[in-house]
């Protein structure tokens, strides 16, 4: 079947958009892995917690400002309000991440790695039912955000038929990527974190509180996962099971990129997003298997992943 250039472009954009969401989840996972040496199985639940929380926050904020007013100003206010809601959601996840690290994880760093898996899995199960307790069994949705943002003309201006919300995700996602790299390259805290990743003992020796770095990193991961959840939920609905798939795909992403490598996570996320997107177009049955096949392939060629481990470069 013939794929028109327009469809090819849109399909690629779809993949990039999905890749950005994936990156926001995987980046936290990979940084936690690189620094704490912990594989956080509950990361998907943090993402889903973000989605659930966001629905409440969106409702609250839209309740205050009302539906988007007419004109450029009204639209801009609405978009800013949505962004603010996303940030608030992510901020709500900060203390969750902090508690995770300080209360639960910190006590078992010196144990066998397998206990960390058991622990984060236990937290996964607990979060699952906490969500069920708060929000109930059936899926919940926020309708206003997706449809309102889609009424803003963007892709139509260049003669393309592409939902504005997806454009929004790509723009915000790019900003997050830029922000993260800036944070790790340019800020003092970011450099301290990287220093800790390279050599924990050395960092301690020069006066870095590794405890605090660990907490910070975990909180940052939770923040990003919550951010991703808030961005991902408007076109769809929040369900109890929604954390599983992104978690497993994030594993693929960070293995492709190299455990702990932020740059690797970025490339891996876009790669998985776009290839998956093209797979659905050209060979739909391969949708589920494709990411794992790519991963197996890359590992055979380059066993330590595309970018090796993290630290020296972000």
């Amino acid at each position, binding site marked *: 079947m013939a794929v028109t250039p327009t469809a090819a472009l849109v399909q690629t954009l779809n993949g990039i958009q999905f890749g950005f969401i994936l990156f926001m989840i995987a980046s936290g996972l990979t940084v936690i*892995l690189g620094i704490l*040496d912990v*594989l956080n*199985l509950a990361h998907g639940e943090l993402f889903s917690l973000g989605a659930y929380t966001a629905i409440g926050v969106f409702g609250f904020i839209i309740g205050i400002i009302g539906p988007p007013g007419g004109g450029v100003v009204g639209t801009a206010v609405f978009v800013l309000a949505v962004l603010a809601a996303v940030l608030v959601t992510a901020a709500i996840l*900060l*203390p969750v991440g*902090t*508690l995770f*690290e*300080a*209360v*639960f994880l*910190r*006590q*078992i760093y010196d*144990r*066998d*790695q*397998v*206990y960390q*898996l*058991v*622990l984060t*899995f*236990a*937290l*996964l*199960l*607990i979060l*699952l*039912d*906490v969500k*069920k*307790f708060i929000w109930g*069994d059936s899926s919940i949705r926020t309708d206003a955000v997706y449809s309102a943002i889609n009424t803003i003309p963007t892709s139509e201006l260049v003669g393309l038929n592409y939902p504005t919300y997806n454009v929004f995700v790509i723009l915000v996602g790019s900003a997050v990527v830029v922000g993260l790299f800036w944070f790790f390259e340019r800020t003092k805290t970011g450099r301290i974190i990287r220093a800790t990743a390279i050599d924990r003992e050395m960092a301690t020796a020069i006066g870095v509180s590794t*405890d*605090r770095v660990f*907490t*910070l990193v975990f*909180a940052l991961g939770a923040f990003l996962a919550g951010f991703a959840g808030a961005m991902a939920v408007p076109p769809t609905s929040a369900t109890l099971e929604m954390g599983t798939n992104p978690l*497993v795909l994030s*594993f*693929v992403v*960070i*293995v492709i990129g190299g*455990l702990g490598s932020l740059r690797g996570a970025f490339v891996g996320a876009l790669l998985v997003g776009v290839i998956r997107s093209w797979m659905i177009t050209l060979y739909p*049955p*391969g949708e*589920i*298997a494709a990411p*794992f*096949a790519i*991963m*197996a392939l890359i*590992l*055979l060629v380059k*066993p330590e992943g595309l970018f090796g481990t993290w630290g020296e470069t972000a």
Partner: protein
Amino acid sequence: MPERVDRDGTPAYRFLGVEVTRREAAFLVLGVVFLFVIPDIASLSDSLQLSVIHQGLLFGFAAVGLNLLLRHTKLTSFGHAAFFGTGAYATAVLARYAGVQSVGLLLLGAIAAATVMAAIIGVLSLRHTGLYFALLTLAFGQLLYAIALGQSALGGSDGLPIRPGPANQPLLFGTAFSPDVYQVLTYYLTVVVILIGLFVMYRITQSPFRNALDAIGQERTRARFIGLPVRRYVWAAFVISGIYGGVAGGLYAVVRQYVRPEGTLFFLRSGDILFMTILGGFRTLVGPLIGGVVLIFLQDVGQDITQYYEFLTGVVLLILVYGFPRGIVGSLRSGGIVNTRLGELRREPSVLSAWGRSAAQSLERKVTEAMTSLRIILFGVD
């Protein structure tokens, strides 16, 4: 016949290479008898289902295999469902497409398929250790899951029945039994397989091979320097552990007469198998088996008593991590935490409130610490 030997001053008996003290022998006999009477206990109680215990034993048996890797080579496999599923699906494919009816042949097929699968995945994933290895095994497991889901010949998400031949069921001793008799007979088959499997595993852990694996687990480079063929040994251990998974999966398919991807290959099943090992006690031989029964039972009973059964399982795992890291069997052993604590409690009952106080204090301290960290993260150090 058992031969009397002396072990560190206590009299012990040796039989077929298994050396036990009198106390251990008593436990052994008791355990075996218990396994055999479970069908009767289950038939007397409404809340206890033979099929649930049976399933627990099967997953637990896979966990016994996984434990060979975890305990000795320190490798954490997060993809053991791959072998369980391979065994189960091999059985289903043989029954459906080759019309194999004999349970024995079906199980042989399961073993063969799991061996091949473990050999391949082993070669590909054992180039790595640590979390990389865990993630790789997980990915291979998910790849198999995706394949089973995607192939209509494998039944897709609906799965495949194991109902070969005119009798519409696998044959034991060439005979088709009625459903409840079949259930009990296959249970006994499982018990026999488990006893053999445990015996073999025991012999492995008494052999020089185990010492080599231990050496590899402690320090790979050193092991290589002293001339151990590290990769070959680890690979052999991986394949053996995969075979245990395959046998368990094959039995699972024969017992339930149906396999579906989610029940056998999904990565959460791999998680289950791993957590059973820890739950039961991964420094012990039979711990994983007991962990299997307990975890499956917990999930099943939990569903009946509360809709928040995941929470329940989560809390049990938390308690395990912090309170009983050596697992059920490890903690019950003499010198284990349960015995120690029970001893303290017997001497001085008021110690209970002290424990409660110290737990509450430590939790409070942790939360305060967390909040301080959060404040610093958000507002910087003042």
